[in-house]
């Protein structure tokens, strides 16, 4: 790409950028999405508790806040969206536990307020009912506030599916393309990227953690955000049965939150101490891990350190750290026309469906003309999940293509056929394959499958094995060929 022209340029391929792209693909309009990473959803969307909340979970949500509205408006949209895109979605319900009457009184107040706002699904359950529903939850809990509407999904798969579906419907999607500078002309932006320049009439800035930096490039930075780092730990499937609901308690210290939840794949995840931190420093610390584990143990005492199979950190953008996590940026710039910034600190995944629609509305208000795309196809087919097929289906599939009879990841039971499919859908790296198929996400964390996935990637992409990366750029997995370091030539 040397020079490209487009009508709408979306910057950022996280859950919000791709949701907007997919929403725009309902219309006949020329849209380009650029993402600096080689794949989608590798920013904030990746380190995530995977919860689709309804705004009542953090009951302090207020209607007057923009973000709360987007979360509420997304509630009826998320499940059908996941179904159309064949992305896992499971309604598991949430239990917010309390240990004394005082705690209960607090929730009583929140519940009343939620009801006055039209959220009526919450109910109190007593100690015995809680024991029955969740026998492994701390015995100290005297009851819980139950919200059956809370669901879980896979945010990265959702993002990849949104991107895939948007592309299917005509959006031009460019990965490995970083926006470096933006100059605003009279009726057009000229955008410098790592791959050349792009001219665009409208810009949607959905750069997640860099939303303010990208806005600043166009002098549209009329807002301030604070990068807040959170920690997530993933537990082995062997303890996956300890709880079936998302379990949650009010934090005892600011910046901490007690939460443990099942994932759609049968693991549990714990999170997340939150801390103001240097942007882009994704490192976890011993202290974060300790607090994360300790808080989770306060909810479910049977969890131990040895159950953690992986952990990582991710960033949320807060408008105001002192006040908590209120507000977001989903608005046109006050100074630069046709420039819209879209960022939701928490919970961006839950708010994505309505945010997509909102962004489209803002674009039309800024002057974008839209005409319906009669060929819009809302459906995307899932990559085969071999382990979920019936015995007959498995047999039939192997007979058709014997690559489905070759298991490459034994922890998650992923076959060569699925890896090849994932590469066909755009995976170019080990992590790209991992997020699409789960190969490498199990308890051995890629020990067994990485040699196999590397050779399949090399073969399918037609590159040498040493060129295969974990996550693009300088993340090559194997640096040298045998004998190369000895300087021996054959």
């Amino acid at each position, binding site marked *: 790409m040397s020079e490209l022209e487009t009508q709408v340029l979306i910057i950022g391929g996280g859950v919000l950028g791709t949701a907007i792209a997919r929403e725009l693909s309902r219309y006949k309009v020329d849209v380009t999405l650029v993402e600096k990473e080689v794949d989608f959803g590798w920013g904030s969307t990746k380190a995530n508790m995977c919860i689709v909340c309804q705004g009542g979970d953090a009951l302090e949500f207020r209607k007057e806040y923009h973000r709360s509205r987007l979360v509420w408006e997304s509630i009826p949209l998320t499940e059908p969206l996941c179904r159309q895109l064949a992305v896992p979605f499971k309604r598991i319900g949430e239990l917010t536990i309390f240990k004394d009457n005082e705690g209960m009184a607090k929730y009583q107040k929140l519940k009343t307020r939620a009801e006055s706002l039209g959220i009526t699904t919450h109910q109190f359950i007593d100690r015995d009912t809680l024991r029955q529903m969740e026998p492994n939850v701390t015995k100290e809990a005297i009851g819980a506030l139950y919200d059956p509407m809370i669901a879980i999904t896979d945010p990265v798969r959702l993002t990849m599916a949104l991107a895939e579906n948007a592309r299917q419907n005509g959006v031009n999607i460019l990965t490995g393309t970083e926006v470096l500078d933006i100059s605003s002309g009279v009726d057009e932006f000229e955008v410098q990227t790592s791959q050349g320049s792009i001219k665009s009439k409208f810009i949607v800035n959905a750069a997640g953690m860099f939303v303010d930096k990208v806005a600043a490039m166009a002098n549209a930075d009329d807002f301030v955000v604070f990068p807040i780092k959170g920690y997530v*730990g*993933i537990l082995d499937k062997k303890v996956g049965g300890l709880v079936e609901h998302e379990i949650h308690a009010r934090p005892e210290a600011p910046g901490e939150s007690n939460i443990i939840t099942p994932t759609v794949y049968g693991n549990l995840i714990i999170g997340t101490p939150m801390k103001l931190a240097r942007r*882009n420093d*994704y*490192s*976890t*610390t*011993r202290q*974060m*891990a300790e607090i994360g584990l300790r808080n989770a143990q306060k909810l479910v005492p049977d969890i131990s*350190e*040895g159950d*953690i*199979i992986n*952990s*990582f950190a991710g960033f949320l953008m807060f408008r105001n750290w002192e006040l908590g996590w209120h507000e977001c940026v989903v608005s046109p710039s006050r100074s630069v026309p046709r420039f819209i910034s879209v960022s939701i600190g928490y919970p961006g995944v839950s708010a994505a469906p309505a945010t997509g629609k909102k962004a489209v509305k803002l674009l039309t208000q800024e002057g974008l003309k839209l005409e319906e795309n009669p060929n819009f196809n809302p459906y995307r087919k899932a990559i085969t999940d071999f382990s979920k097929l019936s*015995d007959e289906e*498995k*047999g039939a599939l*192997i*007979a058709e293509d*014997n*690559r*489905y*009879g*070759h*298991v490459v990841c*034994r922890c998650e039971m992923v*076959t060569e056929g699925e890896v090849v499919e994932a590469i066909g859908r755009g995976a170019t790296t*080990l992590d790209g394959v991992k997020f699409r198929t789960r190969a490498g996400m199990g*308890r*051995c*964390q*890629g*020990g*067994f499958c*990485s*040699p196999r996935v590397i*050779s399949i990637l090399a073969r399918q992409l037609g590159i040498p*094995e*040493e060129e295969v*990366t*974990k*996550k*693009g*750029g*300088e*993340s*090559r*997995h*194997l*640096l*040298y*060929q*045998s*004998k*190369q*370091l*000895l*300087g021996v030539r054959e």
Partner: protein
Amino acid sequence: MNRQNVDVAVIGSGPAGMAAAIRAKQSGAENVVVMERAEQMGGLLHQCVHNGFGLLYFNEDLTGPEYARRFMEKAMDVKVTPLLETMVTKISPEREITAISSKEGYITFTPKSIVLAMGCRERSRGALNIPGTRPAGILTAGTAQRFVNVEGFIPGKKIVILGSGDIGMIMARRLTLEGAEVVAVVEILPYIGGLIRNEVQCLHDFSIPLLLEHTITQIHGEKRIEAVNVARVDNNRDPIGGTERRIECDTLLLSVGLIPENELSSMAGVELDPITGGPIVGEMRQTNVPGIFAGGNVVHVHDLVDNVSWESELAGESAARFAMGAKWAEKGKIALKPGRNIRYIVPQTISGEREITLYLRVSDLEEGVRLKIGDIMSKALRVVKPSEMLKIELPMAQLRKLKQGATEIVVDCEKRGK
């Protein structure tokens, strides 16, 4: 192959599986199959191109592939049926096996008996939870071994190894010979995790720095690993403040222990020992599920392949006899109980009616000790270490000393001379 008529099905064809299958066949089982997900039998032996295999079993110093070859040939001689490129996905408590294979598709059948011989896997980084970033260039020593010895790639040229397990030390030497620089082997304990012979032959002989009582406290690098922080630890294995220093590297290998691979065993309802991570077995290597036997690293992690072969032969023989109608109690009458400084004992139960070999490990390093098997046997030892498995033969002559109706034997490792 007629799968409706399988006497013994062995899951896994590493040294354990091959030994079990051969012995099952030799013990009279007619139709013995070995199920293996790779293209050939032998398991991890193929990537272990170093020597030190078979010193006890064959009285010869063989490489891994040579050791494998002997058993592969023997298996073909006695007409064991290998089912290759076949991955077992399920075993039911009724012994129904489900597998998938690229050649035969989806397979289910119920053999008369089963030997579990799936071996073990390496502990991964997650289990350690090292703080820091998540870059490329962190892999287990065994995965690196496969890359170097089978696939023909070198992961990097400046290498730190965390843990001093045998595979880690062997890879330290291997990578040095390949022209890479191993800048440190970092071990949290005051002693190495593997065999002394590997410390001498792989680390000392190549002047590779070994940092005992140290651990990695942080990983640096965004895309590819760039460095690690290393710190001394105190007696509780916690890093000591102020001792931290940064070591530049482009690769981190993990050699922090092996865990028996027992997902299939659990599906079959086999009861596991939380200490060994493997099935609780009786002296015939029977598990609590009738007709399911287990041998080798799936039961407990061995240091030497020779013992794996021996233990699995016992499992193979038992499986053959079961297939031909023999029956045992699932649990022996007498439980072996770990006492002072004993971590585990395999088998966990015995009948007291046949001579047996006990495999055991201590919890802590100790010098000048006496191993006491209840009051029927005792043995003085100069030094015991968690990393070196103890093997004790218990002949009938000693077992006869057991009191009538005894239900347990406590094994203690006592300090001598006090």
